[in-house]
């Protein structure tokens, strides 16, 4: 069982649809690995349903029912159906993240520096940077501070940070007050999904390595 979870606000934001796509991706992928949070989100969605049921109904325009009835026999546009998965199944990475990577994580465009690899997963959106981080076994991510909030979901291996261990499915949250140096376990490479808003304070050669990935 996972021991470190997204915040209550993030779970609520996922259930009510407020969370931007990068964090929603991180939460949804955590849900695949965490039955506890899955139950929590199901409960919040049930709350959404209950509140929807209680909303004062708005007035639909005249003819709205006729319009929709006339469209019932139109087949669903093919574009709205999920395409079948083309890439071979890689169970290290659960859906929906697997769909975003579109194959084994090895195939991503990794930027490498001293046992650390990072690859951008999607363009910056709502000030969120989304990237995959691959820390080779036993390596450390250099000490860094944040101006924003960082959420890290562990997919393989584990890392230690500030006296805690984060393993598969765990979410590590860091805020502006955090200065840290995560260290991957000796036994296995640690692959993570990282969503970050704000600027990472990382100077020196590491900064020159990571900056292009975060800025792109």
């Amino acid at each position, binding site marked *: *069982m996972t021991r470190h979870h997204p915040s209550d606000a993030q779970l609520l934001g996922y259930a009510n649809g407020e969370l931007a796509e990068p964090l929603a991706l991180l939460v949804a992928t955590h849900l695949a690995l965490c039955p506890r949070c899955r139950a929590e989100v199901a409960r919040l969605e049930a709350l959404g*349903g*209950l509140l929807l049921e209680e909303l004062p109904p708005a007035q639909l325009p005249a003819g709205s029912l006729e319009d929709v009835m006339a469209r019932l026999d139109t087949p669903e546009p093919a574009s709205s159906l999920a395409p079948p998965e083309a890439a071979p199944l890689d169970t290290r990475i659960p859906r929906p993240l697997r769909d975003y990577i579109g194959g084994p994580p090895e195939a991503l465009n990794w930027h490498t520096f001293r046992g650390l690899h990072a690859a951008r997963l999607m363009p910056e959106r709502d000030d969120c940077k989304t990237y995959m981080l691959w820390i080779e076994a036993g390596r450390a991510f250099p000490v860094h501070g944040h101006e924003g909030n960082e959420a890290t979901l562990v997919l393989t291996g584990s890392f230690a940070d500030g006296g805690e261990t984060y393993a598969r499915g765990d979410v590590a949250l860091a805020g502006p007050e955090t200065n840290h140096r995560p260290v991957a376990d000796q036994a296995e490479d640690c692959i993570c999904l990282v969503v970050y808003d704000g600027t990472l304070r990382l100077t020196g050669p590491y900064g020159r390595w990571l900056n292009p990935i975060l800025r792109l």
Partner: protein
Amino acid sequence: MKVEPPPQPSRDESSPAALLAAVAARADKVAFARLYDHFGPRVLSYLRRLGSDQAIAEDLTQEVMLTVWRRAATFDPSKAAISTWIFTIARNRRIDALRKERRPELDPSDPALVGEPPEMADHKVAADEEAIQLRAVIDELPEEQAELLRLAFFQDKSHAAIAEQLALPLGTVKSRLRLAMAKLRTKMQDRP
């Protein structure tokens, strides 16, 4: 929260569950029209509250209800109440159409999915039973917490913006929401 008494789960043929089952089983258009009458105005109300303009909200309401029609057979009444299912369709269509974003969703049949431990599966209650429990928990919440939950679902605002609107410190908004969620969590698990 000031609300009507909860609808009792009904097995009669005019209950939303029976109407949706008729749509799933035999593409019953009369049953669909009644579902539209009930849920259409509520979905429209939801979309309007979240800031869609009237014409776009009307279009989206039709899209949401067409999805209900097309996917009726995938609805599993043991997993969720109909209102919950329709809420999630409306939420996702809105993200799709208005934010132009994908909605990342887990895949319940993904081999990578971690299953429930036995003690969680043992405590499962039917979805209609759960809806009644949830209603009771919401009614017991202090009004200030219930109000925040409603704002969280029906206003497209960050917690900071909600705090500003209510003239409350952000910390108060966050802690009230946390309290409300903690109550939902513990009370829903307590109940027999």
